């Protein structure tokens, strides 16, 4: 049996299994890149706009930490890359990790590899095929990005280099995912480790880029960005990516040879033999299941909010440097503009919180469809208590998340502007979003009560709210349609004054939806098949 026996049929099998999964990832990343590309290109179509961009956004340390080293900020190409590389890089890395783990560790978790292992397959065929699939997908993303740049009339060489740098990061994280899949004993752990490496790579290059130090060269993400498209146009940093990837593959093969099927190189720690006092009721269980996710969301939202808040500085600079703008707004112009910016930031954070609220509320459905609800409802727990206990955790988590978003934004603004009162002001303002956030979750609960198979439809509402908030004016969505998003009814705090009317109305609709969900849940069959 040769070392590669069985790779080809496995490859075909994986591609067939992924015939929807991979196109969604690849086209999704390329489409988002292309959409922002053409939007940005339309925005900066004059030398003046480009110059303003270079002196404000690209000069802000916060923005550099977020997006990467500013190269060629004096031309539109540099701005395009500066604006689009973050989503493309993170997207391709996530895709690679999820794909490789999905076909290796997760398959082992499900016990399907044993089945294949007993047929004629060489020992490393599975991981080889999975690596090929993920690498292929990464190359396709790179190609798609390159074509998008060509379509936007960018030169061939730069388009190809940029596409290659994106693909390179995907290939690197294919290697990281493959090695992590050998190290950890379960898919979740493998994904956790890989995302940890991604976060580290991101953080290291952020610090390096802001300080303009060599630290960026320690990060695989740094290699992809140091090609310096439009300014340095060098290919050789991608050689580092290739070397690193090669090392990861060698490590993968070595680790795989040393471990047993179904286990990892690292064995999981033993846990408690008995339940602690907190794990004793519906709320305790729900809290236990969600606390990790909530913590992750809070960290993410606070980081995002702090970043958004720190941009206030560059907005003030922009107004100060631009006499035309100052004239239009006269006195206090900067503050008005910053307030408008804060209103948009709060709105985005609110929609982010809706994402948490929905996923938290839909935990009820995943508990049910996984079959874990049945044994719980077969104890002294009534349907009503279970329902209420879960929603309590969702409610508390959502409030915590909304407040931490407002607090993060406010604190960061207060620090950059030297106005301590802003911290409190923005925290209070963020509470205005609570009724809309909870309403979206309540729609999910209503679906759960009556048509549990269709709960995922509520995500369309979250996406719709996002599109309306972010692109509503750009796409000229008519007001009647935009009003379907609960967020459209909120006053744009802190620019506009708070009025009780819409808040009360949204809260009432929320309560009605929850009551409807409660009713449906009490009348229907419960269980994995429902």
């Amino acid at each position, binding site marked *: 049996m040769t070392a590669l026996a069985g790779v080809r049929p496995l490859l075909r099998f994986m591609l067939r299994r992924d015939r929807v999964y991979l196109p969604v990832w690849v086209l999704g990343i390329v489409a988002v890149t292309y959409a922002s590309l053409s939007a940005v290109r339309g925005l900066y179509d004059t030398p003046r706009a480009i110059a303003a961009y270079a002196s404000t956004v690209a000069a802000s340390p916060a923005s550099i930490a977020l997006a990467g080293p500013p190269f060629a900020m004096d031309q539109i190409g540099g701005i395009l890359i500066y604006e689009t590389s973050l989503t493309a890089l993170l997207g391709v890395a996530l895709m690679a990790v999820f794909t490789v783990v999905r076909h290796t560790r997760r398959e082992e978790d499900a016990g399907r590899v044993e089945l294949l292992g007993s047929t004629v397959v060489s020992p490393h065929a599975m991981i080889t095929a999975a690596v090929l699939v993920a690498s292929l997908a990464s190359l396709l993303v790179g190609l798609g990005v390159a074509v998008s740049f060509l379509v936007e009339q960018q030169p061939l060489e730069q388009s190809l280099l940029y596409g290659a740098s994106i693909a390179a990061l995907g290939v690197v994280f294919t290697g990281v995912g493959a090695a992590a899949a050998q190290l950890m004993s379960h898919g979740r752990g493998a994904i956790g480790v890989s995302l940890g490496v991604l976060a580290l790579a991101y953080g290291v290059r952020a610090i390096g880029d802001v300080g303009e130090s060599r630290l960026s060269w320690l990060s695989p993400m740094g290699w992809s960005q140091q090609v310096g498209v439009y300014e340095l146009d060098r290919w050789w940093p991608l050689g580092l990516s290739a070397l690193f990837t090669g090392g990861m593959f060698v490590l993968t093969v070595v680790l795989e040879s040393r471990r047993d099927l179904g286990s990892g190189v690292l064995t999981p720690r033993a846990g408690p033999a008995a339940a602690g006092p907190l794990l004793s009721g519906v709320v305790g269980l729900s809290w236990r*299941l969600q606390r990790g996710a909530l913590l992750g969301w809070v960290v993410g939202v606070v980081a995002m909010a702090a970043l958004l808040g720190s941009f206030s500085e560059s907005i003030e600079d922009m107004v100060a440097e631009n006499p035309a703008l100052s004239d239009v707004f006269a006195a206090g112009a900067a503050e008005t503009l910053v307030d408008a910016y804060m209103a948009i930031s709060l709105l985005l954070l609110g929609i982010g919180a809706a994402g948490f609220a929905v996923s938290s509320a839909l935990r009820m459905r995943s508990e049910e469809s996984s079959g874990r609800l049945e044994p719980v409802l077969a104890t*002294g727990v009534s349907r009503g208590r279970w329902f209420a206990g879960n929603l309590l955790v969702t409610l508390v988590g959502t409030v915590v998340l909304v407040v931490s978003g407002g607090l993060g934004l406010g604190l960061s603004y207060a620090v950059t502007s030297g106005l301590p009162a802003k911290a409190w002001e923005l925290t209070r303002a963020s509470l205005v979003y609570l009724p809309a956030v909870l309403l979206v979750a309540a729609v999910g609960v209503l679906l759960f009560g009556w048509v549990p198979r269709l709960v995922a439809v509520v995500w369309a509402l979250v996406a719709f709210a996002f599109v309306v908030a972010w692109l509503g004016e750009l796409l000229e969505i008519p007001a009647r349609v935009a009003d379907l998003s609960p967020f459209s009814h909120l006053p744009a705090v802190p620019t506009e004054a708070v009025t009780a009317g819409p808040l009360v109305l949204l809260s009432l609709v929320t309560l009605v939806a929850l009551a409807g969900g409660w009713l449906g849940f009490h009348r229907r069959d419960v269980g994995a098949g429902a």
Partner: protein
Amino acid sequence: MSAAISVSGLVKTFGTTVALDGLDLEVCTGEVHGFLGPNGSGKSTTIRILLGLLKADSGRVTLLDGDPWRQAADLHRRLAYVPGEVALWPNLTGGEVIDLLARLRGGIDTRRRAELLERFDLDPTKRTRSYSKGNRQKVALVAALASDVELYLLDEPTSGLDPIMEAAFQHSIGEMRARGRTVLLSSHILAEAEALSDRVSIIRAGRVVQSGTLRELRHLTRTTVVVETERPMDRIGDVPGVANIVHEDGRVAFDVDTDHLDDAMDYLTPLRITSLVSHPPTLEELFLREFGDRVVAAEEEAAR
């Protein structure tokens, strides 16, 4: 004796699938009741209705003198349930799950918990995501058996257990019976039900087709024998308990009541056996043999 479970005329449909088609079931207090039937016959559906998880289309259901749909939570404090497919929270350890389920039910006997963990050889410190199917089932079993309740509803609780654990399970059910607890044990393994049950009900296509004590159903536990001998077996039909004789190129296949198995062997041995295969009847075979006509008739009637 009063009834712990009493079901009559129970009907449940899922879309066009008729899962239960007028099911009657009576489980007396203090008995171990085997609930037998082939795959998809409606055992789990019945148990889920008994738990108030599914709503019956029609029929009458009484559980511990209550209505399981209306008084679910109150009744559930007095019973313990082991699902057929045990799904657990992957991040929790087995010990945590056992305690959690017991607490939700209203308390746990810690001495008994330790005893059962030992008996089922279960490591409570492992995360449930790393348990095998059998170990997940053990978690559910320990959680149920560690609670001192009146009624145990067990849905194929041993389908993932190895023979040693199966013995431990049978021992535990013996204890339950000695303490006067009621057990409804669903299974499609005839031998298990035979070893444990006071009475059994046999379900097929959503109806109970036979119900009674094992003595009453003794004729069901026939063994099928296919044998080849050097000398002819002309008089096999005279052996008591032998039926359904089929001659087939030198071999003979027949069924024999388990009580009379040694009579058959006494007759065959002097004829010099050259090959012999015997197996207890599968449930499907039983149904086809015992109720074939009735089932066909019932299905035709249902189709009309």
